[in-house]
């Protein structure tokens, strides 16, 4: 039996456990900074190193961020929740237990709507709770970096120890790897819009551990779940689950048994490999953390947070269509990242400010129910989705970089570029070069144009001389044009462009040739 056939006999049941580092300035239970990428063990203190006698004090900001996330996911925030100790031994866990929440989490319930192939599905969320992160082991590594030396020891970096996390657990409502990816992307977007986390999968500030089991299509009983670790990108989550679906399907179809185990995703080989068996449920000997009082929230405080929730992606997408008349596709791309959308709206606002409230519109309403297409809004969208996005990708930059004060192409620069084309100072083709120059040097587009002498010749006096010369020198082409052969027009314009080094305004050249030839 081919894998395709065996796979179609089974349905995958997937639940996602997502850990997200909250973007608080300091750690969950001590005052250490949380800056990513600091030298190993420089952001530590007796508390997050688990020295004898230290005690945790809860970071209020972390609670606020977690409440925000819970509310945005439509969860029920409990006014009283309890911290618990999860006991296990590992060198990255300085106290020998992790402070987390167990039977009384901060929030339960909620949902997230995800779209796959144009269809919307509601994925239920089981719970969201607060906990602390562990340190990081560097196996066979060197203290300076992480280069493997094959040394027979491991080093521990406790900078991450005690960084606040929320764990968000979904119900097993996902059925395909694509759905799982869409769920994760939707969650990523929400957390980014809330501003509660960097949500960078590559840096580990968002980590996803899916659980996947297979069952024969049409049956209810859940299969044996396998947990997958080491998935460091959306793509890895989708690929890892796809691989695991096939592996389990082939195993089951061949009469085999899926074992309850944890498997690791091997990015290079694109396979999951066995990590450890889960014989029975691990016994973490949970009990209420006696060093912290139950977490009691004021209803008013929670409601104030609810009222302050920012506009999330779906609402913003709809608004961009409504307010700027953008195609739904554009709005979807621009709002995929809150930072890109912020950039976009800043740029459009600059145009509005420079032109008063009446921004030029290209054409009136196309039909009933369609908003007037907002020319500058669409032009800026085109630039962002096209060349700007290409340049960002080539430079390996994420949308967050666009909001940095030092970003080479601030919204004002893009607006300036659009204006240069609008005025006819440069052609659309030249604008691409100017954009690249601004992107790499940070010099404003007008400065680039002046510096490189890129401005089009739009001075009709100067152009007339050149056109006259070309018309005189090419009598046969002139004759053809008069005879109605438009191809000759292209030749004559081409000659003018050649003489002007491509700087002539093509529209004006066209007009001048027609005038002189009298066609």
């Amino acid at each position: 039996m081919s894998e395709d056939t065996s796979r179609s006999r089974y349905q995958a049941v997937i639940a996602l456990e997502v850990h997200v580092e909250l973007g608080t300035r300091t750690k969950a239970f001590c005052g250490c900074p949380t800056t990513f990428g600091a030298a190993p063990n420089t952001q530590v203190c007796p508390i997050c190193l688990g020295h004898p006698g230290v005690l945790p004090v809860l970071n209020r900001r972390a609670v606020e961020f977690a409440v925000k996330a819970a509310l945005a996911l439509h969860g029920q925030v409990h006014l009283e929740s309890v911290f618990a100790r999860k006991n296990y031994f590992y060198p990255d866990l300085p106290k020998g237990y992790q402070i987390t929440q167990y039977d009384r989490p901060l929030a339960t319930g909620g949902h997230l709507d995800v779209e796959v192939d144009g269809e919307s599905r509601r994925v239920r969320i089981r719970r969201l709770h607060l906990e602390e992160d562990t340190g990081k082991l560097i196996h066979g590594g060197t203290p300076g970096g992480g280069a493997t030396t094959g040394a027979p020891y491991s080093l521990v970096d406790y900078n991450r120890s005690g960084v606040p996390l929320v764990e968000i657990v979904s119900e097993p409502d996902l059925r395909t790897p694509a759905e799982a990816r869409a769920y994760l992307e939707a969650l990523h977007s929400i957390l980014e819009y809330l501003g509660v986390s960097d949500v960078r999968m590559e840096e580990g500030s968002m980590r996803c551990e899916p659980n996947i089991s297979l069952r024969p299509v049409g049956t209810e009983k859940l299969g044996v779940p396998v947990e997958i670790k080491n998935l460091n990108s959306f793509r890895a989550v989708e690929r890892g689950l796809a691989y695991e679906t096939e592996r389990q399907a082939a195993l089951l179809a061949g009469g085999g048994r899926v074992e309850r185990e944890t498997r690791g995703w091997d990015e290079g080989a694109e396979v999951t490999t066995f990590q450890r068996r889960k014989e029975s449920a691990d016994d973490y000997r949970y009990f209420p953390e006696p060093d912290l009082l139950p977490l009691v929230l004021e209803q008013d405080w929670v409601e104030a947070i609810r009222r302050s929730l920012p506009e999330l992606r779906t609402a913003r997408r709809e608004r961009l269509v409504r307010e700027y008349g953008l195609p739904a596709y554009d709005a979807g791309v621009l709002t995929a990242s809150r930072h890109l959308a912020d950039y976009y709206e800043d740029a459009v606002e600059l145009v509005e400010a420079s032109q008063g409230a009446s921004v030029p519109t290209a054409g009136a309403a196309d039909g009933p129910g369609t908003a007037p297409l907002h020319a500058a809004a669409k032009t800026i969208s085109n630039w962002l989705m096209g060349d700007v996005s290409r340049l960002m990708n080539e430079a390996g930059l994420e949308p967050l970089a666009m909001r940095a004060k030092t970003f080479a192409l601030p919204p004002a620069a893009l607006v300036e570029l659009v204006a240069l084309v609008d005025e006819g100072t440069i052609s659309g083709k030249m604008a691409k070069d100017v954009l690249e120059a601004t992107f790499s040097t940070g010099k404003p587009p007008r400065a680039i144009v002046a510096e490189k002498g890129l401005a089009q010749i739009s001075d009709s006096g100067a152009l007339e001389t050149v056109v006259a010369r070309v018309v005189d020198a090419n009598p046969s082409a002139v004759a053809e044009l008069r005879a109605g052969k438009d191809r000759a027009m292209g030749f004559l314009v081409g000659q003018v462009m050649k003489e002007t080094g491509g700087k002539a305004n093509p529209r004006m050249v066209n007009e001048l040739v027609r005038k002189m030839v009298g066609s």
Partner: protein
Amino acid sequence: MRFTEATASQLATLIAQGEVTRSEVLESFLERIVAVEESVAAFLTVTADHGRRLARLADKAAEGGATPTAGVPFALKDNIATQDIPTTCGSRILEGYRPPYSATVMQRLEAAGHILLGKTNCDEFAMGSSTENSGFHPTANPWDLRCVPGGSSGGSAAAVAAYEVPFALGSDTGGSIRQPASFCGVVGLKPTYGLVSRYGLVAFASSLDQIGPITRDVTDAALVLGAIAGPDPLDSTSARVKPPDYGQALVPDVDGLVAGIPRELFGEGVEPEVRQRVEEAAAVLAELGVGVEECSLPNAAFALDMYYVIAPAEASSNLARYDGTRYGYRAGAAAGGEDVGNGARASIGGGPPPGDLLSLYLSTRSQGFGPEVKRRIMLGAYVLSAGYYDAYYLKAQKARTLLRRDFEQAFGRYDFLISPTSPTVAFPIGERADDPLAMYMADLCTIPASLAGLPAISVPCGFSQGLPVGLQLMGPAFSEELLLRVAFAHEQRTDHHTKRPPLLGVKRH
């Protein structure tokens, strides 16, 4: 003048009046330590240099006209963190460990100008009632060197009783301040849970642990409590209550108060002479106008059972951090690893390679911990295990709630409760060492107040066969003023606290 005979309050006055310098006071206690320590062995570390330096600086500052600071020497139980000064908890697993920070109580005492003179011996991680479980050496009772000083704060109690320091701090989880105070004939106060910050107290059982003073009289107990009590932003369980001036409580007026004697703490196990002394104390209070009645705390009969589920459960988790990774003892690392400062240690240790992670953990912990600590870790891990949690831990917590209610009910009628601090006087070293259950009985009377988080004080109330007997007074939460007042009134009418142990100059063995 023998400064060692003076109490902390007397010394503070003498120093403030310029009658004596801090250095002179310090030296006389250091002399005393040299004279008796060979017999008593109360200390694990004597911080003579540290003390001398601070005393000199403070004396200089005072000469220069600075606001005078107290300058009274003190000792801390060795489970209270002191920056750069060894803090071992009486355990080999922390031998040589110097914390990178100081406990809140240490900071407060130093801020008041008191001067640390040393760290005292205790049962390993405060688990024990005789100080025999110390990983280093036992401590002797100054009243009879063949007897234990009680525990786990036995070193602190013995040091105060032997006039080696005017006061010391201990920690009390199930009686570890009160019982040794009782055995050594000194005053020991366990405050309400949350009154004194636990930041820097190496945790044994977090929901029970409290730091408190061990002093030679009630006045000093009030003085020291005042210096260490009060909210601490570093301890989430510290109460947000501003403590009163405990000195104001020291008036011998108890007329009209009503006291209960819970029969559950005054039963069969109480030695006849101990019973007699406590009855005499009750009679003294009655003479002062206190109404004394028998009462009942029905669930106190199960207090020991609750305690030996809850305390080991928390301990099993609290002691997980001693794994040889970051500080303290590591099996196989002969040189104890490479010190990289800040109390931390590089992972690249000396000695033979540790093999795999599990064997590093197993050998570090089986070599580093003593038998009593291992016993409690195993007990605690067991009662928290899946399938047993409900039957043990949860049930014990429910019973604890019932016991709290018993106390609440009793305090609806009585202002305070009376009992012996310990059912017996100090027992000979070695007598109960191999019988954990007999040892656990030593805390029978002190554990109930611990479980309920209530304040209790032990004061001397006479002798039995030449050994001190302690009277325990228990009150409602944050009733330290009342307990100090009653204890003070009792002290004013008796002279037990003025009796001196006969040890002087006598050598052990």
